[in-house]
């Protein structure tokens, strides 16, 4: 349940360099005893870097084929990499876990606390899931949860790592993930009493008590405009709290995952699952989540839900006419969806083309650098709840430009980006008054809801869509 070593590699000026490494000598000592004659020592930093990059396919990017890197036999099928320390077919360092995110690659080598031969399955090594948890925690700590990279913050946080590791992974045994936000607040002594302080709570909250429940659903959709392919959409909802209720005919919340601070769960909450045949008599709420909150904002629970109709139904058609393409896009807003958006945009990628199109509502913006046609629909659909785009696209020659291999011939898509405040697709909601707080402090309780799009594609119905789904075959 320990790690032998930890590495952090960052991309600087197009090159991957090792920016932090830590070897845990006492764990290595155990590894040697455990593995006996099968022991493989951890090579020095540069060697590890090269081997790791080879496994991740990041070496010699100028060459289209490198045997060591691209061999079809060498197929990575688990989170654990195998570093070929002595060239192919010889001794290997296993299981190396690696997470590649933004400019960073984080990697660690968990201890194998089982007989080395035959190689034990990952499921028998607790250190593997521990390593994954630690790496994910370090990643969030170093890069922040925001999408934008803060390189100054990154280097200052990298400098803090030794003392962070002293707290969370002394001597190679991960105890916690790094605290988010401001550096860990010093431990505040707890008031006397028998109640023990949770270890995941770094101190006591000072200031006004408040419960803020934000309910965000994201909707994914693949619309093919084709009878033989079934359209799909489902939602994810993070940041929920306390009691969730569904409308009387709502479909049950599925695949529920809860934060570890949730103290207990009713078994009925976990029964519905997206991989199962839906059972009409399934439990449909209310969903109660008793928990004790940590100090930072956290994701109490997440769920998925099957919704019978997509919020925006689209149709996309490209027809070839001489050297031009005739485009036709229709978007219909479903009547159950509130016609009040924070934003709503349709993105159509086109390469090396001149666009001449008209729209029934909204504004058009052609972004030459991004080869993108952006159709901004603003805050509202028109009363008819339907908008259209018609026009022609002509291509200027076969000049090589940026291409998307997914996007060729008539394989094309419209991608929708939208956000609807104060609504959820599943109908799931949190009543402000249902939030119960057992505390002497009277907290302010705020709840909110919103719906966001994610991977919302409408494929050209006259072309081949390169994607299909398993549900279709059954």
């Amino acid at each position, binding site marked *: 349940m320990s790690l032998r070593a930890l590495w952090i590699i960052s991309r600087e000026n197009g090159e991957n360099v090792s920016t932090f490494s830590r070897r845990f000598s006492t764990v290595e000592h155990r590894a040697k005893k455990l593995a006996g004659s099968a022991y493989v020592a951890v090579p020095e930093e540069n060697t590890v870097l090269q081997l790791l990059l080879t496994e991740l396919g990041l070496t010699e990017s100028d060459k289209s084929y490198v045997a060591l890197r691209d061999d079809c036999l060498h197929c990575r099928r688990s989170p654990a990499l195998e570093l070929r320390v002595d060239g192919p077919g010889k001794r290997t360092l296993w299981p190396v876990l690696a997470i590649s995110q933004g400019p960073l690659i984080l990697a660690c080598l968990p201890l194998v606390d089982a007989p080395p031969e035959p190689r034990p399955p990952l499921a028998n090594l607790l250190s593997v899931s521990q390593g994954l948890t630690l790496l994910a925690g370090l990643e969030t700590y170093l890069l922040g949860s925001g999408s934008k990279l803060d390189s100054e913050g990154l280097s200052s946080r990298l400098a803090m790592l030794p003392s962070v590791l002293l707290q969370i992974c002394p001597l190679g045994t991960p105890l916690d993930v790094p605290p988010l936000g401001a550096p860990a607040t010093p*431990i505040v002594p707890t008031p006397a009493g028998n109640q023990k302080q949770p270890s995941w709570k770094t101190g006591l909250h000072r200031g006004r008590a408040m419960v803020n429940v934000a309910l965000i659903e994201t909707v994914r959709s693949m619309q093919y405009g084709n009878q033989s392919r079934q359209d799909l959409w489902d939602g994810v909802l993070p940041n929920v709290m306390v009691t969730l209720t569904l409308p009387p005919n709502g479909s049950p919340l599925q695949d529920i995952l809860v934060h570890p601070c949730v103290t207990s769960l009713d078994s009925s909450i976990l029964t519905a699952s997206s991989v199962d045949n839906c059972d009409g008599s399934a439990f449909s709420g209310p969903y109660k989540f008793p928990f004790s909150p940590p100090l930072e904002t956290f994701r109490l629970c997440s769920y998925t839900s099957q919704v019978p109709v997509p919020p925006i139904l689209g149709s996309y058609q490209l027809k070839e006419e001489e050297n031009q393409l005739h485009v036709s896009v229709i978007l219909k807003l479903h009547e159950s969806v509130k016609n009040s958006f924070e934003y709503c945009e349709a993105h159509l990628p086109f390469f090396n083309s001149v666009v001449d199109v008209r729209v029934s509502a909204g504004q058009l913006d052609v972004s030459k650098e991004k080869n993108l046609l952006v159709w901004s629909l603003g805050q509202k659909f028109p009363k008819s709840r339907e908008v259209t785009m018609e026009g022609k696209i002509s291509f200027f020659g076969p000049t090589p430009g940026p291409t998307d291999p997914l996007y060729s011939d008539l394989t094309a898509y419209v991608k929708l980006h939208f956000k609807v405040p104060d609504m959820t697709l599943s109908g799931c909601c949190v009543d402000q008054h249902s939030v119960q707080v057992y505390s002497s402090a009277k907290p302010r309780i705020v709840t909110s809801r919103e719906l966001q799009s994610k991977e919302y594609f409408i494929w050209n119905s006259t072309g081949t869509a390169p994607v299909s789904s398993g549900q279709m075959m059954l």
Partner: protein
Amino acid sequence: MAVNWAERISAFSRSPSRFLSGTTAEAFLADLANTDRSLILVFDPSQVLLLSPLCESPILLCPSDSVGEETALELMSVFAQCPPKFVDFRCHLLLALTSVLLCSSCMSSCSCASQDFLDLLLEIAQDISDIHGDGSLRSLQATACDCLRELEACCPGILSQRLELLGALRQRETSRLHQAYAGLHTLVLRNAVYQLTQEAGAGAEHLKALLGGNTSFAWEADQDSGLMNKKDSAILSSVILGPVGTVPTLQTGPDCKELRSVLSSLLEESYLLTPLCQAALLHRLTEVVAMVPGVPPAIFRAQLLRLLGTSEVCLLHSILMMKCAFTDSLFSAEDEAFILKRLVVLSQHPLLNTPPKLFYMDCLLHFPENRPINCSDGDETLPVLLTPQLASALVPTVFNDSTTMLTRFNLLCLVYLEEAEEGVGEDGRGLAYLYEHLTSLMHIVEHGGSREIVVTFFRAAFLFLSYFFYVERYSNSLTDKLCELYFHHTQLAPHLINLADQTQDRLSGSTWGVGLLKALQRAITEAPLSQLTVHDLRWHLKMLARVAEEGEIPQQNTLNFLSCIITPSSSSLCVSSGWRLGNSVLGVCRRLLIHPSLDLLLIPLADILQHLTCHYGDTDIQDHARLYYTLLTTLSREKLASVLMQGEIQGGQQVKKQSLSCIMAESEGLTAMLTVHQTERLTHIGAHDFRFDQLFSIHLHFSLMDDHYEELSDISVPCLFRERPPPVVKLHLKPRRPYPTTLCASAIFTTQDGLSWHTNLPDIHVDFQQVFMPLPAPQAWGRASKLCLFEGLWDEMCQESRENDCATSRFCCQLKEAALLALVEKRFLPFLVSDLSTNKELKVLLFLPPQSHVLLKIRSEEDAVHFDIATDNWQLLSHIGSYLLTITSSQEDMQS
């Protein structure tokens, strides 16, 4: 100073070996220690990094126990002097001490320093002086607990007598620190129980005593010696190993109330720990319950739902480990189905990142089933409950990242393999889907997908083939599609070759790889030449070279193709092209030279090589073509094959794969093969050199030092094996003049590794007497006729007046009668004309080819033996004289 240290430390951690090659571990260690001391005086908190070399590589810095012990004492004195406010530095000192003492094995040998350190840690852990202070002691206490836990982990049992104390500390603590105590307490408990399982006759009483910290039991007295130096590493290993492992057990009967109450209390509070510590605690407790059958696994039941609903990968993992340890004693069949479903959900949950999802999929393929059908260890197997319907949630899509896609693809292949084998999905929709997915991927590759997608496609193709190569409908279609793909993207040649190689290597019973190569050969050679570009041609040649390695693929088409592209009339490609292209053409030719059907290819191949020799635009290529041509036309097939194959083995994959250096590397190999290596002496006889154990095609050559004899022709010996009797070689000399001479001999031969050797053999001396031959008289002649001839010749030679080369002489020596007889019998018997028994005068007629004669009349006079000599070649007199001198003096020696 500070900057210098930062640089030195980072240089050390980057490459300890290189760093220490510039200084010694001792010097570096001394520097570190001195600096640590001075740092306390001018405190600089950022300098905790000074301790990192000791934490990370203690063995390098303290190679022996004594250095470790000294360093530890030094560090402890630094710790004692360090003011309490430098918390971080003090914590790191504790970590460094732990690392040094454990890795130098001072701890396992119970050295003084390690005992002191253990006491120090326990003292810190129990300190309650700072309960309302600023929390700095808490940090130190937490680190002390971490150090104690690591000591217990590396030296199991070291704290087993402190179990009661640790339990009390854990229960007393209400701050976050209780987590550190809980982690330590569970590990010590686990190790202590494990040790009890190894004690013969240990039972409930021992367990009770252990938990109560009562050390009065006899088994505990010798525990220190017994366990500290325990070589067996089994205690370090998890006891939960699935169906292959056996769990050591402690028979206590149902009465283990004390243990149960400790476990319940730990479990009740487990929720207060961070997920990582919770998972570790649950794992340790799972081990304990697995080892003590007296405690029912149901003790965990209250935790299960909470853990099953978790979003934390390590907490769900602890459920899987419980499942593995307790199977149906904790989980019903319904539970099992639920957990499996949950794993499928988690394997594709939109909230989770890729690594945990991959982990869950891996767990699906190693699912701890209650009733596993086959206990294959380590292999991927599909749980029975994972139906195609359930697995359909995990079908790969082109939007997946490569690893996820391949993982899902592999999993689905397994699912449909079972379906196909059981003959269920007759319509094979699952398989059809997988194939469709593969073609979607190929479609992306065709439209210029990134390198990553290309590699992913070929990996998916290999996976597909490895499961379904026997389904010809798909494997044939894949071959066709790959040929088409290759034609639009010839730069994919290395990937295709790799795919062919691997399917050939790994899929026994499949000829798919050869089929693909055959199809590619057809496609390349049948395409119209007019559309061929130089770029494509390079890849085609690479591909054809690989095709030519297949003995069962006929190569006529390849030869036709080569012949077309190098002839200016049909193609302009090779005229202007340089060395690289020529090299590629030669690469194909080279493989054809060793193709089993070479006999059929001989003439067209020779034509191509000759054409290259005469017309190719690059001299180097011309030279090599000439070399190949010469090899082809002069060497036997076997030799040619051995010469070229040898080069291949020596050059290995490098030669095969890197076209640019192909000829270079090859030339070296060829040179080695074709060079005759010099060896000082033929060592077959002498000192044992295994290379010369077996010699083949030995070719002996002799040269004369003068012209007395006709030139000798060479002699061939097929083989010479050390363990067999050597063949005898007869040399037939044809003298021009019958004089003694010396022959120089040498040998050329081949050894088993295919190399040729040249060696000088010892000189061969031809003595005068070896030229002697009996009178070449007709068989029918009797003694009288010979005597008659002798007398006639004698008279002839003695006529001095004749102008010829005749001469007479006399040689005298002292010899007894008997000695003389013995001498004649030994030396001259075949040449004797007179009767040996007449004893009067012995007459000897020596014929020396080609046309000389020496006649001897030997008789004993009073004073001496007289050898009267007559010859028709006076130049022989000196030789016969010295010969007689030699033989008579040796006879005299014998006499005396």
